[in-house]
């Protein structure tokens, strides 16, 4: 949420692993990125949320030194992406929307090839490949070509491929697009494991639940510009409030229940149509306040539900406020 403070010697102070400051990128007259600033600390997940064309992949390309920014500066693991691209490439792994592996080689041969290119001797390369195959549960498929893999397996191989060189920072560009639910969950668990190990992750996604589950902080992009950033809770707080919905026991008088809650300091709203009481709450402890208040007047709640604004609410609200590309 706070403004971006650029450390002068990031590579030695070391804790900020991804940072972009006022990065803009134009393609002809198209402004793909407009003064975008993001940062991520070591061992955290930063999610870039946005529609197709919001600028997510362009920002990933800038941060992985594949595309020079038109203006602004960006550094990964403390190395400037324009001045020290090779140093950046040594420290990052990238998994894109499409599996980037050689279809002519087997899964294992792909990993060995990458380890060799990163400077491993043949023996260490094979050891690293086997280590990753085991880690990702791919041993059974090691001798097969990626063409025979399912979508989920291929994505796992691709992620394994981007980890061959022990990167400090990994970029996951829509890693679960097109995956079935169980494969998504699978990939999420792998990412959580990596983060627990201290890897920094930048994730782009169109899926709000994915950002909600994995990200420590979320930046919402629309038409190349940052329209919001913060934690999942902070973003939700900017849009809607959490609610508790009580359905009193059939025998109870809803008006009594309303009074009791009001006396406890909250503001209940009667929903006559459904016979429920909706209470906007500030903090989760207010749920206990509601239950206590009802208990004091002897009313049993037949049903009690907790309503949280979803990131969908956040995204729709923010994206509708922001100007859309014409």
């Amino acid at each position, binding site marked *: 949420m706070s403004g971006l403070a650029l450390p002068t010697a990031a590579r030695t102070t070391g804790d900020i692993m991804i940072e972009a400051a006022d990065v803009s990128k134009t393609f002809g007259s198209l402004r793909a990125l407009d003064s975008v600033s993001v940062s991520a600390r070591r061992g955290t997940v930063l999610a870039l949320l946005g529609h197709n064309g919001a600028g997510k992949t362009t920002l990933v*390309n800038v941060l*992985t*030194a*594949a*595309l020079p920014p038109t203006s602004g500066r960006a550094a990964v693991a403390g190395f400037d992406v324009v001045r020290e691209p*090779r140093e950046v*490439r*040594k420290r*990052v*792994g*990238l998994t*894109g929307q*499409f*599996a*980037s*592996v*050689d*279809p*002519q*080689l087997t899964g294992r*041969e792909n990993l060995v*090839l*990458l*380890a*060799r*290119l*990163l*400077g*491993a*001797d043949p023996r*260490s390369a094979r*050891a*690293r490949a086997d280590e*990753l195959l*085991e*880690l*990702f*549960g791919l041993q059974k498929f090691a001798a097969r070509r990626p063409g025979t893999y399912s979508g*989920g397996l291929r994505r*796992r191989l691709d992620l*394994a*491929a*981007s*980890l061959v*060189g*022990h*990167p*400090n920072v990994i970029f996951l560009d829509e890693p679960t697009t097109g995956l079935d639910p*169980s*494969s998504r*969950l*699978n990939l999420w*668990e*792998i990412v959580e*494991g*990596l983060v*627990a*190990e*201290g*890897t920094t992750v930048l994730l782009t996604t169109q899926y709000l639940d994915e950002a909600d589950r994995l990200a420590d902080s979320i930046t919402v992009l629309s038409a190349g510009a940052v329209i919001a950033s913060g934690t999942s809770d902070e973003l939700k707080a900017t849009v809607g409030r959490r609610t508790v919905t009580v359905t009193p026991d059939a025998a109870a008088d809803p008006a009594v229940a309303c009074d009791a809650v009001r006396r406890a300091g909250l503001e209940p709203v009667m929903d006559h149509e459904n016979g429920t009481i909706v209470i906007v709450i500030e903090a989760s402890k207010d749920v206990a306040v509601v239950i206590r208040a009802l208990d004091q007047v002897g009313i049993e709640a037949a049903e009690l539900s907790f309503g949280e604004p979803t990131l969908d609410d956040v995204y729709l609200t923010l994206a509708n406020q922001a100007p859309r590309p014409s």
Partner: protein
Amino acid sequence: MTTQLIGTSDSAPPTPGSTKGSAAAWGGGSSMFTQIRVLTGRSLRALVTDPGVILFGLFQPVIILFILTQVFSGMGKSAHFPQGISYLDFVMPAILVDNAVQSATQSGIGVVEDLKNGMVARLRCLPVHPSSLLIARSLANLVRATIQIAVVIVLAVTVLGYSPQGGPEKLLASAGLALFITWTLGWAFIAAATWLRRAEPMQNLAVIAILPLMFASSAYVPVDDLPSWLSAVAQANPLTYAIDATRALALDTPGTGSALIAVLISSVIAVVGGVLAVIGFRRPL
């Protein structure tokens, strides 16, 4: 159910980020020499695992070898045909050059494939020199062309009794020149691949560029036997120099001038193609 699919959930947490052990010893990248060696090996592996590629590549030169020599054997009696040699002797160097040119186009196809399957995208975010992949493709293709030319020569010698006047050494030299043309001309097609980036226009280019160039040359008929306008085209065609030079070597006739021009033209193509390829390859995906 999902957790059983991977080994991470119930066992120890994954350690891919770990910098212990072998990790510290490498990861900093490899030399360009290693990159080229590893990537060439990778391209060649496809020949071993997918022999269809090489068999299919052999199909055309072998068919041309057997059909051309039989269909046009009467050509040996034409007015401008060199004295004392058979049509097989005449056409064999052209078959070698045709094979060389066909192989050259394959270098470009390989690069397009790498662009399509994401290999290039993968290598771009690694500390790998962009030219390494291109050089590796060109070298792997040279190996492939060598195998094909060897097979064609062996078939010509054993089945058709090919025995050129220059003897085995000169025959090898002519094969060497053909391979030099493969490698240098390959760079023009690699350059085209990095700019076109799609297989279809590449294949069209290969057909459009090669078919007329091969026929409007001294390949299958003496230039003087061609109609005058075609003869003029043939004399300006760089492939004519390549074919004349390869033929002069195999037949052991004077032709140093053609060889020099052929090498010179090929080298210029390689340098210009190489530069354009690297520029084209660096453009954003």
